[in-house]
């Protein structure tokens, strides 16, 4: 077992920053904490690292109870959003610093730093000072310092947020690979659902101090257990509407209805919140698994490979994401195709009933 949180909570003053959290992260896995700012990701990471002690509950690492053990005694490496490097050390010294603290022999230090620098493409920059480097290079130096430590637990707090879009993409590709071979348990915090999907691994969604769901990233995306998890994990935001199940038909306002198929037939006749991803509501050609809905176009955004259209469907502001370029006029009534088999239904508590 990598790291386990048992009923961990954190109270600061009168506020609960983390409510009783139970989480088991597999050893050597790549885990993502997904949530908006202030949802508790950083606090949770600090609790895992030992920078903060939980108000209640226990933190277990590698089958040992480490609650209350100071962070210097734990083997943790952490990388922050702001590129944090020792400003008066060269890149070489920065990466070497944890090894120097551990009093390794010089030859060994040089070898390890050389390897890491090669991996992170920093070899030509080993003699430079951090403020002479670009943002991406500074962050790679910070990553190097975390990697060289070979710590069994690596925490990354939105490390790519301050970088260029393209650079972010490249580093995102590299990161899981970098840590794969070390066998370390990696925890990566982010507020971007796209990033979580691109990194893969397992994800825990956080909302206002609670862990709402944990599982394989793509599965959580497809099957969120609550409306809240669904909302945290969608960008563009998930489309929702109130629907009624009446016998064998689902009814959305304004005469939009569709038949209840096999997997939904077990649902009771009641009112539900429908959730459907924007890429399952498309423009263009009809599909055999979809029904046609009419909507009024509000705003349209074309990104070259995708058309993102904001429409009004019976008073609900919905977003449709379609591959390819689709011309239209604002204010037009347009036909959308909703894939009914992809609909998620949530009951009044927000829990998933059927998908």
């Amino acid at each position, binding site marked *: 077992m990598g790291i386990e949180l048992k009923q961990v909570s954190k109270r600061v003053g009168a506020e609960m920053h983390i409510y009783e959290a139970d989480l088991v992260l597999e050893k050597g896995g790549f885990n993502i904490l997904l949530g908006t700012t202030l949802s508790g990701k950083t606090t949770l990471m*600090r609790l895992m690292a*030992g*920078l903060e002690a939980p108000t209640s509950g226990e933190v277990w690492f590698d089958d040992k109870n480490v609650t*209350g053990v100071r962070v210097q005694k734990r083997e943790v490496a952490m990388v922050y959003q702001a590129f944090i490097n020792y400003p008066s050390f060269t890149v070489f010294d920065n990466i070497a610093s944890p090894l120097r603290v551990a009093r390794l022999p010089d030859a060994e230090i040089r070898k390890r730093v050389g390897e890491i620098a090669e991996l992170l493409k920093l070899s030509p920059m080993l003699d430079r000072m951090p403020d002479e480097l670009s943002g991406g290079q500074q962050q790679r130096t910070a990553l190097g310092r975390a990697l060289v430590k070979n710590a069994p637990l690596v925490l990354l707090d939105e490390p790519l947020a301050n970088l260029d879009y393209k650079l972010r993409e490249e580093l995102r590709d590299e990161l899981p690979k970098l840590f794969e071979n070390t066998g370390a348990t990696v925890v990566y915090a982010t507020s971007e659902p796209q990033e979580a999907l691109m990194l893969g691994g397992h994800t825990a969604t956080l909302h206002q101090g609670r862990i709402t769901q944990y599982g394989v990233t793509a599965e959580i995306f497809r099957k969120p257990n609550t409306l809240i998890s669904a909302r945290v994990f969608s960008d563009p935001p998930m489309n929702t509407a109130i629907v009624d199940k009446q016998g064998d038909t689902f009814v959305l306002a304004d005469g939009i209805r569709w038949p209840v198929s096999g997997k939904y037939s077990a649902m009771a006749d009641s009112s539900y919140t429908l959730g459907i991803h924007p890429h399952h509501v498309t423009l263009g050609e009809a599909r055999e698994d979809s029904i046609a809905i009419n909507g009024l176009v509000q705003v349209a955004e074309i990104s070259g490979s995708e058309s993102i259209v904001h429409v009004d469907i019976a008073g609900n502001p919905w977003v449709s994401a379609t591959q390819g370029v689709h011309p239209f006029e604002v204010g037009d009534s347009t036909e959308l195709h909703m894939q009914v088999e992809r609909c998620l239904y949530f009951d009044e508590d927000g829990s998933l009933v059927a998908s």
Partner: protein
Amino acid sequence: MSKTTNQKAWIFVIPVVVLVAFNALIPLMTVVNYSVQETFGNNVFFWEGVKWFEEVLNSSRFHASFLRQLAFTGTILLIEIPLGIAVALSMPKKGPWVSVCLVMMALPLLIPWNVVGAMWNIFALPDIGLLGRMINGLGINYNFTQQPAAAWITTIVMDVWHWTSLVVLLSYAGLCAIPDAYYQAAKIDGASAWAVFWRIQLPKMKRVLTIAILLRFMDSFMIYTEPFVLTGGGPGNTTTFLSIDLVKIALGQFDLGPAAAMSLIYFFVVLLLCWVFYTLMMRDEEQ
């Protein structure tokens, strides 16, 4: 964010606690002891209760020196704070002159306080002092050893010379922390220089200015060395500020009881005024 508790820290704290107790708490307790008793020497003490406190609070001498102190502190705050801000505003933010300016500003702060007093004493002497001689040469009859007004002005000028730099350095630090984008946005909004000062620079310097005002207030309210060396409290008692008066009573007249009582009242006044200042300035932050 709270840090993990560390019991070992107490080992570092205990020696300091002992030292502070020895140097500060015990003498303080001694003063409290004296303030409620009467002695004629030979370590014989008689309980007096609140008599000394009443006497001090009703004494016109105390009122006079208290008012003088308030006037002094008020005047120098009114001069040093705006002047300090103005100088900080005119200092360059980048370039080779920055270090030169900073060093020049720091210099007055490095001089021992009694030397400051002695310097200005000689400098302002009407007959042999450079400044004193020059002013008298201009036809103005200036003699700080005999004229109360001249003594006040000289004391204030000396303090402004000595301490404005502190306000300058603190304000400068505050100003440097303001990102360029604010100035650029103000340009685009067509804001006048005054609006930039009032709406951007001053609000952003609030934290730093609070520190500057508190520091100057406390230091000036307890001022002793410089005016004592400069004027000795004179002419007469026109520049006898609270601490000077206190020392006169305690050591000069050896009235330990009233002196002790006065010290305690002095202490509480400073504490109270600091608390009021701080609360007023930090009140906006809470909102």
